[in-house]
């Protein structure tokens, strides 16, 4: 990973600019940004782990805690909220039996509330493994959960 990050680093005028792609590499490798992964990134970029963690915690796309095999994200930002994102999220919570930000006990599915996913014209946007479903209504939720559970 060190060498991979060095390559990316060389593409930017300042090493700090390479933090996001470097974190992405680490996340792809470990699934989530473990403290050791952050240390590794920091070492490769000659930054501190605290700085890398600070950057990672700002962005929704980085995970600072373990996530399940499948990732269900519900946009709860303003446009989606106006067309009932909260109800959609609650439907997911009920269907999966977990709260937003949690992972099911079997480690299969993680449910998260997302900041704006950029699909404001088609709220509510739900991203399953970063693939958008829209618009989603609370009544669509059981089918999506079934699909996710079945590995679709």
């Amino acid at each position, binding site marked *: 990973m060190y060498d991979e990050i060095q390559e990316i680093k060389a593409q930017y005028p300042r090493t700090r600019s390479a933090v996001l792609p470097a974190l992405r590499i680490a996340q792809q490798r470990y699934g989530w940004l473990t403290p050791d992964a952050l240390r590794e990134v920091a070492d490769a970029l000659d930054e501190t782990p605290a*700085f890398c*963690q600070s950057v990672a*915690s700002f962005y929704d796309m980085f995970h600072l805690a373990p996530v399940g095999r499948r990732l269900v994200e519900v946009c709860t930002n303003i446009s989606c909220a106006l067309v009932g994102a909260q109800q959609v999220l609650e439907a997911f919570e009920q269907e999966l039996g977990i709260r937003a930000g949690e992972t099911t006990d079997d480690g299969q599915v993680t449910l998260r509330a997302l900041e704006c996913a950029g699909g404001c014209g088609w709220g509510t946007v739900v991203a399953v493994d970063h693939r958008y479903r829209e618009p989603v209504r609370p009544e669509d939720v059981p089918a999506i959960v079934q699909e996710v559970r079945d590995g679709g």
Partner: protein
Amino acid sequence: MPELVTLTIDDREVQVPKGTGLVETAMGAGIEIPVFCYEPRLGPAVGACRMCLVEIEGMPKLQAGCTMTAQDGLVVRTAATSDKAAQGQNATLEFLLLNHPLDCPVCDKGGECPLQDLTFRYGPGTTRMVFPKRTFDKPIPISPTIALDRERCILCYRCTRFSEGVAEDHQLVPRNRGAQTLITTFEEEPYRAPFSGNVIELCPVGALTSTQYRFEARPWEIQNVPTVCTMCPVGCNVTVTTREGKVKRILSRNHPEVDQGWLCDKGRFAFSHLRAEDRVTQPLRRVRRRGFATISWEEALDETERVLRGAGGRIVTALSGSETIEHAYGLAKLLRTGLGAHSAVLPEETDVAIDAFRLPLSAIRGAELIVVVGDDPVAERAPVVDLWLKLARRGGAEVVTIGAAGSVLTAPGSAAQTCRELAGSGSELGRRLRESERAILIWSSPGGHGGAEIAALAGELGFAGKPGSGAFHLPATPNGRGVADAWAAASDDEGPNPEPIAVLVVSGDEAASDPHVRALAERAETVIAIVMFERVALGWADLVLPGTSYLERDGTAMNLEGRLQRLRRAAIPPVADELSWLSQLAARFGVDVSPYPAPVFEELAGTVYGGLTLGELGERAALAERAQIPAPAPDPDTEPARPSDGHYLNLLPYRPLFAGAAVERVPELQFQRPAAEVELSWDDAQRRGISSGDEVLVRSNGTSATLRARLNRRLLPGVVRIADEHARDLHATVEVTKP
């Protein structure tokens, strides 16, 4: 002359240079724009707290005053004249207090809290927040010296901006986003950085507080004494807070030319050594092999007199360089004029040649090219100088470090050689130094003949004629130069080094901890040690006279710039201070030494400081003019460092900042002391199959140490770096292996 602009603030017309911050502009006109997050020393304003809202004609909404600069024709209304601005600030404060716990009676900041003060003046009188507030675990120790209370935090980002933009340690960071932001370190690791304590002072609420000062005193119960820190040669100006005669905390005191209001953790937190459990509070006499018996002062003075008289002038004095000038002069006068004992181990010589290139430390900020020569990290020798270098680098200056771990790698111990090369005609860097009007040289290495090497280089580069260019020598001792001046001022006579040594007088704990002085003590018949801590003298000193700390002394000290600064007594020492008993002892030898520092200074200033008076020093001492001294000729025989042959590595010991008898006695600072680590270059580690964190065996001829490996990609291959307290017995070349 910068362009002047005219603007109106609260119907008052103000003329300032273009680009002046609005907060300063208003302040100059006698108008206050209240702020929390704004602090010019932290870099560009961020407008995070919204306390500085002002109404500006032509702009529909209130503006953050701190982010604006003076423009021609601007019409600004602050809360004093604008209801809109007043309402805005009122609402801002109500918002800031939304989750603020209002536990002011319990909070250490209470009474000196900007949030309290500004709420009182600009805020709502009552609260509408009747529902429960957000709570966190508290206090969280983000390091043994700093406690964090997240409930009180108003997210002004002063602390993280300091960590990122001033100290550049990037350890205290905001986590998450928006209202969920938390101030934190990585994975609850301690905030381990030499300047961490400054965030306590920067915090405008009680979120970051000192653990040492925790619940110790309130602002109306304390006395503040302005003095100067002499834990290192920078001589930062400090304010010492005392309550009921005890030092409770140390705050920085902004001297814009020396420290800019920053203070390192050693200067800030090391004061509790005053209350060390092995503090010597009575004279001691050695009994049997490893024991001391307390004796009275009368007995101690009799004994000292008897020993000194019996020595027949065969006396050697070892000085620490942490004494005040007056104290060193008193000792020197007694020994030199009273006993004819002219032989001394001075802490460190300082060559006067460096005075020809004298500049205030703040000149580093304005420089365009700075060359640091030497193997020692600047932060370990003179920490605040490192902050000046970082400030210069951020301002666009080029900082070149030449050493075993620098931006230009050279063999260890080759600093003098580097100077020769820079002076030569072939060096590109030397040419640029010669051409620059604002270039600075810094010597950060042991040796260097007290700055003579760097002064010689500066002379050859023509710095004497350039008022913007100068040279600094970073000495190892806080006041070595002042002590040497005092020793020289006491007498003009000279004497041979006595052999054998009858009496060795060791002044100060630093000298007493010095292995060279210890070696000298083995050859002395009697050792008199003037130390603060019993364990330092245990087992080898015959007579121990109690010493005092810089916080307990009145006097003067000279810092690395050559600036004479005044120390004031913050706490009454538990023993008579050195000058008072030196005066009594001197009287027995017919030598007149005043027990008070002021007359002593007057006496010696006439000889060495051109009749300077204490009144002229003041609270923020000025720097003397550059001296007109011809630069010395460079020393021709500099020893080149031995190159590494791959198998053996050159050991580069360094003296860490957090070391010494005082730091060892401060429990809160133990985490800052260097770990038992050996720094290895990447190449050497790869070759030996060592990775960071491995236990390795460092061996040299007959001695060995087991240390943890740390990889340093900046280190020159063939060199290992170890803090000298862990490298004590190792020789100059070592072998590093995995056990």
